[in-house]
């Protein structure tokens, strides 16, 4: 019965993803994307990746989407200011995306995927085990991300600053 949780979450994520790209109002797009991210966090919990589920909620729903909402608010966007695309361009975009999906599905259909372990039994996603891997094998990349964040911060401040002349 609990297998249906996966299908329910998948349905929610695909539906909200479709609503993100089809909603006229950018604010609605942001809110649907938050819902989509929450359903993806649910998928992570089903896969027993608890650390990533929490980080996903904190980083995506907590930080990134709030940033998006602030920018949409700041630029005062609504359905009226939304630029329109011609019907032909929309149709070709849908066909292009659908063909990409078709290519991926047909390419992977014959692939044999043999699970080594059931996600319920794998304990790699727990905070303790992932922390050990992160601070032993991946210590250098972990430290380098601080440099990345510093440069991103400097870049964002520099870009957001008004010109003083």
């Amino acid at each position: 019965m609990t297998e249906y949780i996966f299908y329910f979450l998948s349905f929610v994520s695909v539906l909200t993803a479709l609503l993100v790209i089809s909603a006229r109002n950018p604010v609605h797009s942001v809110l649907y994307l938050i819902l989509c991210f929450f359903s993806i966090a649910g998928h992570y919990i089903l896969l027993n990746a608890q650390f990533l589920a929490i980080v996903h909620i904190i980083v995506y729903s907590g930080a990134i989407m709030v940033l998006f909402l602030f920018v949409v608010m700041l630029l005062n966007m609504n359905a009226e200011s939304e630029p329109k695309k011609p019907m032909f361009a929309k149709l070709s975009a849908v066909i292009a995306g659908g063909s990409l999906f078709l290519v991926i599905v047909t390419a992977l259909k014959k692939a044999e995927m043999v699970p080594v372990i059931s996600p319920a039994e794998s304990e790699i996603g727990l905070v303790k085990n992932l922390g050990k891997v992160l601070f032993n094998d991946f210590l250098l990349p972990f430290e380098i991300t601080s440099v990345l964040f510093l440069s991103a911060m400097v870049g964002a401040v520099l870009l957001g600053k008004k010109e003083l002349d």
Partner: protein
Amino acid sequence: MQELLQNVRLVPMEHYVWLSSLLFCIGVMGVLLRRNTIVMFMSIELMLNAVNLLLVAFSAYANKPEGEVFVFFVMVVAAAEVAVGLGLLVMIYRNQNTTDSQALQTLKW
């Protein structure tokens, strides 16, 4: 909780592949479909998340932690990317007074 997780093994690995490819293609569609750069940016986030989901699924089924660590780094890079990208978008709005991707043609000469 444990009982709930025991039953998840019924989900075949392929279904995660289909789900993430569908989400990725919806993201691609969004980039092609919309002209508002912020919605295009959100579609890019959607694509990143589709890939993250697939990486987590593979690493959980293969019992290897490297995939989940990689997802962690993808999230880090995505956070940095959003900060810089939204800064750029606000800057563009300040100069052009629009976020329509069609209006940004000054480099097209």
